[in-house]
């Protein structure tokens, strides 16, 4: 049973922002509710008002322009996993979306909600960091772009301001020699470790991005792991993967919990990085 709350149903982003600004911490954005309602059911959070953003138009489209795929924050995981544009331009993201949670969560859960709730054990943020995505946000009077790698501040905490609304996610389309992969590991209901890698393969391995998620409080780009692979030949990069994996594992800020000990998670990061590199090449 949920506690009573008042439902607000704004029709525009400006209205959403105004409501959030007016009611502050007693109000929360409500989209698919697949994370929010659980937290409310468990009594972890309580709100006087839920702001239903699903009546705001224009936030659930996927558009492809010259260099990027723009994904509306209200796109459901199901929309993303069945999107022809994603299948063609961002197959690693399509595969990730296909494997989020379960079919019922994918049906109503939104990518925007997933990113903004910032549950540590989630998938999309990690890959979006490796793909160099930008998150487009709006307030009543202004817009800004936040790089995915700067968006996740801590567990359940993002860089969004109180009255700021995530509207779109802009993902650069990889070049013809771009390669990327996301792998996750988990035996509980949520992923325990997630690793993403993206790079260009043109003679050597360049433009490398490595991100680690789920093991620690927030997904993180790991520049120190990237440096061990950047600019190397494919073979040399492969030889450095073990070390890169160890670096990435430590950077994950893993904690020991039901998902595994810190050492175990760090080990799994290393395993997944090796496999993700191979998967990206294939």
């Amino acid at each position, binding site marked *: 049973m*949920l506690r009573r709350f008042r439902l607000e149903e704004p029709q525009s982003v400006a209205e959403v922002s105004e409501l959030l600004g007016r009611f502050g911490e007693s109000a929360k954005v409500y989209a698919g509710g*697949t994370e929010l309602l*659980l937290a409310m*059911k468990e009594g972890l959070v309580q709100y006087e008002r839920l702001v239903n953003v699903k009546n705001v138009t224009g936030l659930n489209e996927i558009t492809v322009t010259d260099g990027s795929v723009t994904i509306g924050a209200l796109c459901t995981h199901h929309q993303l996993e069945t999107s022809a544009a994603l299948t063609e331009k961002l197959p690693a993201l399509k595969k990730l979306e296909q494997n989020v*949670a379960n*079919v*019922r969560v994918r049906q109503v859960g939104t990518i925007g909600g997933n990113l903004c709730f910032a549950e540590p054990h989630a998938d999309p943020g990690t890959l979006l960091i490796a793909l160099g995505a930008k998150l487009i946000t709006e307030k009543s009077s202004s817009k800004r772009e936040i790089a995915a790698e700067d968006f996740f501040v801590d567990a359940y905490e993002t860089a969004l301001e109180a009255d700021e609304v995530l509207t779109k996610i802009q993902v650069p389309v990889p070049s013809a020699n771009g390669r990327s992969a996301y792998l996750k590991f988990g035996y509980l209901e949520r992923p325990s470790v997630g690793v993403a890698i993206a790079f260009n393969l043109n003679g050597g391995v360049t433009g490398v991005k490595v991100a680690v998620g789920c093991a620690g409080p927030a997904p993180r780009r790991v520049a120190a792991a990237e440096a061990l692979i950047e600019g190397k030949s494919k073979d040399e990069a492969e030889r450095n993967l073990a070390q890169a994996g160890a670096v990435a594992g430590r950077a994950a800020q893993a904690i020991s919990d039901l998902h595994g000990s810190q050492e175990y998670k760090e080990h799994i990061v290393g395993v997944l990085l090796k496999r993700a590199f191979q998967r990206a090449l294939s």
Partner: protein
Amino acid sequence: MARAMTRHSEAQSIPVSFTLNGRLHEIEVEPHELLLDVVRDQLGLTGAKRSCDVEVCGACTLLVDGRPVSACTTLAFEVRGRSVLTIEGLAEDGKLHPLQQAFIEHGGFQCGFCTPGMILAAKALLDENPNPSEAELKHFMHGNICRCTGYKKIIESIMAAAKKMRVKA
């Protein structure tokens, strides 16, 4: 459960007009009411079960506009203007749906607690993909948990029903 709570004078009431098992219903709900509670307690359809209550087990699966949702974690007002299918609405004029028939013939249930959700999820799968591979079936049904059967006969039941349904179509 919903009706036992005292209504405040400022309680917000949302009219919900929706199709339930093919019939139009018009009810009023408060924003915080969950679909599972409304369907079970207000509408008396107890096929959908509250089991994990955190949308991982699928025992509360309902079809909204043909797509599976966790009724335990769906606010009831979200079905306004939509069509909802519960297990009670699957048989037509007393004739079992091929999925129901197959689960009986192939032993696809033991205690039956997960079964309404299983069958509805399977219906959504076959509506989307009438000829799924076993891998596709397992992927779609991954979110429906059974503690009794070990899944083998559930898979056989669904595949058998799919075959019958393809022949009929």
